[in-house]
């Protein structure tokens, strides 16, 4: 006979010391995680918010709620290290502790307990404002110092809560649609402990009024012969209806460094400044990436897909993020590409990969990680490689929870038209939590792609989606080799489901200009 879990069993699974020591967690992110995890597990917040706020019949009940929790949060933040919790919070926490023996399933019906948990969540959230992005602190802020230490050393904001149990990360966007646990906080994210290690990193990147990016949809040509059947050489056995393939980029012999240098100079001549260069999935070899880093100035970051093969012939497929003076960050792709009959026909690969089999990309997918690069309060960037954008596990759910301001998706894909898959998943991230998403494929892959019906729009090499407008296709006109795009930041107030606002601090990069760039050497 099964036995229902109790609130105490659930909470001690997150914070084991609660078995012996039931004092309120003094570090706000710990309190946030313990209480929100319980509300999330039971879904009790949905019922609670059907009659909201607690003092809803009083005049200005919502204003009183938001003011009260903000003031209590500020009080907690200002003196967290030597803080004696105020009576309101100790009463709420005692209500939780008194319920340790109660069944989880009964939580939703206990409104007083739900209100106590919810108050602890939102006060801890208010206490944690500004934990995510490096910003100019007006005055000395011990809480921000400690939170940055925690993020850097343990990749979580948790102190007492070990990341093998739950991970707490900053939040850059709060969903403005739907109702989930993510709708309940402005500054903190609750992430399940998982196989992916997130890294939250800072680098002194200077942000101007706009962020000008040079998108280089390299390579210009992809050959069918670059796809190889490696089934017999692979170290992994599969049923007969499957095979393994790799994509060989070692024979791309054009003068990429010279080309990028010329395009960068031309784009800079046009826009006055280029802040970053972006190249698609599997567009560069390791050496080409190093060459690019050498020729581009340190005030220009690079986000690029780099490929190769290890000594056993297993493919390497990763994104590299270079934000000087920080050394290059590497993040491997998390999911292998699977080519089915439809895609083999779409890309015309039947000459090397029989359409009667399904083909898996033979790639090294170990050591799963996700890098968040915090440039300043307005911009936290992360990059995804192809399928990582589409699959909810293991990284897309973390991305949705954190809501980085800008997601760059590097693809090896067909044209980036509105109706294709990348636009669908970019829209999901733009709607909830509010990320701006840029996807980029190579002109070579876009040209290799042949639609089953309708015109071939192979010049659509990139797509932009933000929270304000529909997806914008970015075309590479004939005779041009790159596109410079300008991103500007728009601020908008975001609200939690309980009615708290962030005072207009949520930052949204928006597309504010596109300019095709030709290689000046070919005029």
């Amino acid at each position, binding site marked *: 006979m099964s036995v229902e879990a109790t609130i105490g069993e659930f909470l001690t699974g997150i914070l084991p010391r609660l078995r012996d020591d039931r004092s309120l967690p003094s570090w706000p992110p710990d309190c946030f995680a313990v209480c929100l995890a319980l509300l999330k597990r039971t879904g009790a917040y949905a019922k609670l918010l059907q009659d909201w706020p607690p003092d809803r019949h009083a005049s200005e009940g919502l204003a009183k709620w938001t003011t009260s929790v903000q003031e209590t949060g500020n009080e907690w933040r200002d003196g967290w290290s030597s803080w004696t919790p105020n009576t309101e919070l100790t009463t709420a926490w005692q209500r939780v502790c008194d319920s340790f023996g109660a069944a989880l399933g009964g939580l939703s019906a206990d409104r007083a307990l739900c209100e106590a948990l919810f108050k602890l969540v939102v006060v801890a959230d208010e206490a944690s404002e500004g934990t995510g992005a490096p910003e*100019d602190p007006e005055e000395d802020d011990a809480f921000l110092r400690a939170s940055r230490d925690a993020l850097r050393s343990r990749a979580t904001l948790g102190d007492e809560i070990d990341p093998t149990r739950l991970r707490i990360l900053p939040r850059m966007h709060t969903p403005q649609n739907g109702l989930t646990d993510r709708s309940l906080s402005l500054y903190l994210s609750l992430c399940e402990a998982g196989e992916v290690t997130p890294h939250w990193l800072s680098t002194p990147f200077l942000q101007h009024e706009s962020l000008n990016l040079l998108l280089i949809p390299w390579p210009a040509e992809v050959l069918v012969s670059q796809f190889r059947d490696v089934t017999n050489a692979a170290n992994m056995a599969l049923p007969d209806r499957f095979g393994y393939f790799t994509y060989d980029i070692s024979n791309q012999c054009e003068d990429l460094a010279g080309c990028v240098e010329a395009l960068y100079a031309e784009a800079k001549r046009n826009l006055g400044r280029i802040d970053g260069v972006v190249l698609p999935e599997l567009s560069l070899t390791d050496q080409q990436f190093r060459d690019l880093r050498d020729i581009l100035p340190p005030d220009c970051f690079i986000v690029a897909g780099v490929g190769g093969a290890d000594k056993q012939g297993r493919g390497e497929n990763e994104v590299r993020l270079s934000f*000087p*003076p*920080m050394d290059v960050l590497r993040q491997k792709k998390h999911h292998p590409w699977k080519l089915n009959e439809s895609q083999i026909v779409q890309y015309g690969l039947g000459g090397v990969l029989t359409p009667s089999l399904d083909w898996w990309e033979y790639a090294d997918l170990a050591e799963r990680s996700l890098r968040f690069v915090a440039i*300043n309060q*307005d911009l936290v960037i992360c990059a995804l490689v192809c399928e990582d954008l589409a699959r909810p596990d293991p990284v897309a759910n973390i991305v949705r929870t954190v809501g980085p301001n800008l997601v760059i998706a590097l693809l090896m894909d067909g044209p980036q038209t509105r109706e294709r898959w990348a636009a669908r998943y970019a829209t999901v991230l733009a709607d909830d939590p509010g990320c701006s998403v840029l996807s980029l494929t190579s002109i070579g892959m876009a040209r290799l792609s042949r639609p089953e019906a309708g015109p071939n729009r192979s010049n659509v090499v990139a797509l932009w989606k933000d929270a304000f407008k529909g997806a914008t296709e970015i075309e590479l006109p004939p005779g041009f080799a790159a596109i410079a795009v300008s991103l500007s930041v728009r601020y908008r107030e975001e609200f939690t489901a309980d009615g708290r606002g962030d005072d*207009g601090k949520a930052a949204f990069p928006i597309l504010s200009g596109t300019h095709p760039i030709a290689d000046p050497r070919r005029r």
Partner: protein
Amino acid sequence: MAAGSMVLLTPHDSSVLSSLVQYSRPSDRRQQLLDSLEKPDARMVGEAFFDDQKYEKAPEEVRLTVDQFRAWVDNNKHRRLQREALRRAARR
């Protein structure tokens, strides 16, 4: 990067220095962060950021890196003031 460029910082040291230059008003805190840096070059950057004499004697790549962090601190302050002005304007 080419010669004459900044010190190449490990991701850890880049993040420590970012904290150091923004959130290091207590001196014991400053020393704690300096001690946690992995590479000697990064430590030189951190020390030169706060000590003009060490800055003057530092190699060019260290000075360039310090300059970058100083510009970044100013940039962050400028952007904060700009954001606050925008919010004030939006409330009117």
